[in-house]
């Protein structure tokens, strides 16, 4: 029986399955039996060898699969947004080229933070605003998008033929031109926003921050990917906010979102200003934990903020930065909260 245990452990060793305890057990067993641990090496060597597979046919099989899935045998199935871009076999290379072109336009004009570029798309276009920069984009239909730091927007050459559709990760402010024949969709990881003609802000970062859509004027319809039955209509100054529960694992089951609408005209104005402050080179936060304020600052200034004390993260703060640099911003924060910091290149340590 002990012999079998030895082989079980050796099997786990060569297939990389040993736990720490089992590893120690194996070493003990080998010692007990006076087995040279080096004798395992040959076995491991053989185990790591992969057999020669006939892979040359895979390419052929892939071609046959592509023709099958593009052949429209089932073009019916996809939900509303999904059937407008199936043909793009050579898309990857083309997309890369285009995005380099688009990217370099921005790069060369990056002195001006809000470089305006007319994007003429003939295939996939990807526009990225790196940390520390904002970009203004004019879509092929004339709609305008202001892309916040650390965000990416994509659209393809079918834009505007049936729908106007973009894919967003990060935050952007949209001013969509009215065109009821070609509804405008913003697709994010968790929700899809349908628009007729309006201005609104979408925030969908892959961080702890909530995922939000706020309407500045006009009307949008939001559907959540987890529950496509559920559609929420948002009117001017209303905001839909979704907990990014990837980061809040405990409240699984229920899909948690809330629609925040403000009643008085004054509140309304204030809420909108806060939400879209970034489009005017301002960072505004009200009753936000230090941690998410830091996330905003990291993207805005292209820095990394480290908390030396966990408890600092949850301190709530309200304030704004109006076109200040990172040093000034940190000094403003120091007026709100008592802390010291040290800045080493792009790393900021909060003490």
């Amino acid at each position, binding site marked *: 029986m002990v012999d079998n245990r030895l082989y079980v452990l050796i099997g786990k060793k060569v297939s990389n*399955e040993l736990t720490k305890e089992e590893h120690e057990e194996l070493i003990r067993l080998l010692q007990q039996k006076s*087995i040279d641990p080096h004798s395992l090496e040959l076995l491991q060597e053989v185990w790591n060898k992969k057999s020669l597979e006939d892979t040359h046919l895979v390419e052929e099989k892939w071609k046959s699969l592509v023709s099958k899935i593009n052949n429209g045998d089932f073009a019916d199935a996809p939900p509303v947004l999904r059937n407008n*871009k199936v043909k793009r076999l050579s898309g990857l290379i083309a997309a890369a080229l285009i995005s380099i072109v688009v990217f370099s336009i921005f790069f060369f004009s990056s002195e001006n933070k809000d470089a305006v570029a007319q994007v003429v798309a003939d295939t996939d276009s990807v526009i990225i605003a790196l940390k520390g920069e904002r970009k203004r984009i004019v879509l092929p239909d004339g709609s305008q998008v202001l892309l916040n730091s650390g965000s990416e927007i994509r659209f393809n050459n079918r834009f505007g033929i049936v729908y106007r559709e973009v894919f967003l990760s990060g935050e952007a402010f949209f001013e969509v031109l009215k065109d009821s024949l070609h509804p405008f969709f913003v697709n994010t990881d968790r929700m899809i926003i349908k628009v007729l003609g309006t201005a609104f802000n979408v925030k969908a970062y892959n961080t702890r921050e909530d995922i939000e859509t706020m309407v500045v004027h006009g009307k949008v319809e939001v559907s959540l990917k987890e529950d496509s039955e559920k559609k929420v209509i948002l009117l001017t100054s209303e905001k839909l906010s979704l907990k990014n529960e990837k980061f809040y694992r405990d409240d699984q089951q229920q899909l948690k979102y809330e629609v925040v609408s403000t009643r008085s005209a004054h509140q309304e104005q204030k809420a909108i200003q806060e939400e879209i402050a970034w489009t005017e080179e301002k960072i505004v936060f009200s009753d936000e934990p230090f941690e998410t304020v830091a996330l905003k600052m990291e993207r805005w200034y292209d820095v990394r903020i480290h908390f030396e004390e966990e408890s600092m993260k949850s301190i709530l703060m309200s304030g704004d930065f109006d076109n200040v640099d990172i040093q000034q911003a940190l000094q403003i924060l120091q007026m709100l909260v008592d802390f010291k910091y040290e800045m080493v290149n792009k790393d900021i340590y909060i003490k």
Partner: protein
Amino acid sequence: MTAKEIISLQQRVSLFDDQPAFGRLFNYHYTALRQFAASIVKSREVAEEIVEDVFVSIWKNRSELTAISNFKVYLYVSVRNRCMNHINRNGGKNLVSLDNPDVVCCGLVSDPEDIMVVSEMLQAVNKAVNDLPPRCRLVYKLAKEDGLQYKEIAEILEISPRTVENQIAAAVKKLAAVLKVDFLLSLPVSTVKK
């Protein structure tokens, strides 16, 4: 391909209908899945069809792709289920034919630069592998060639992780024997040191 890369490709397919990303997932998994299917249905043509169907169905339902947490296991389980359906539909005698899989392990080929593992040794290994009981050979193939974890294999074959351990142990014992690595033979103390 790391698990992270697979997840990112899954997302690209799901959110952006990205066919090149789908192609990479296909290329990466195709051969192993076809071999797995062939070991159950015992026909290369049927196996190819089954694997293709699985990928077509994934493409159809790509909007749900991000909900799949372990794509690799999902692929193997889908292939297994379709194989079972195929056998049942065609009046297979052995309903749960996973008991007698016909696994063909392609031979290991020696590398002239490799001084440690010579080609006679590999021939002996290949022969030993093909002499393993079918089920043991299947588990061995999934762990060694396809790089699946024990718990993934257990899930795919619907057996207990303990069974996987024992099957691998049996394979290792056999390999050790042909490699003349006799673990149970006590070595003189002098060779143990260093």
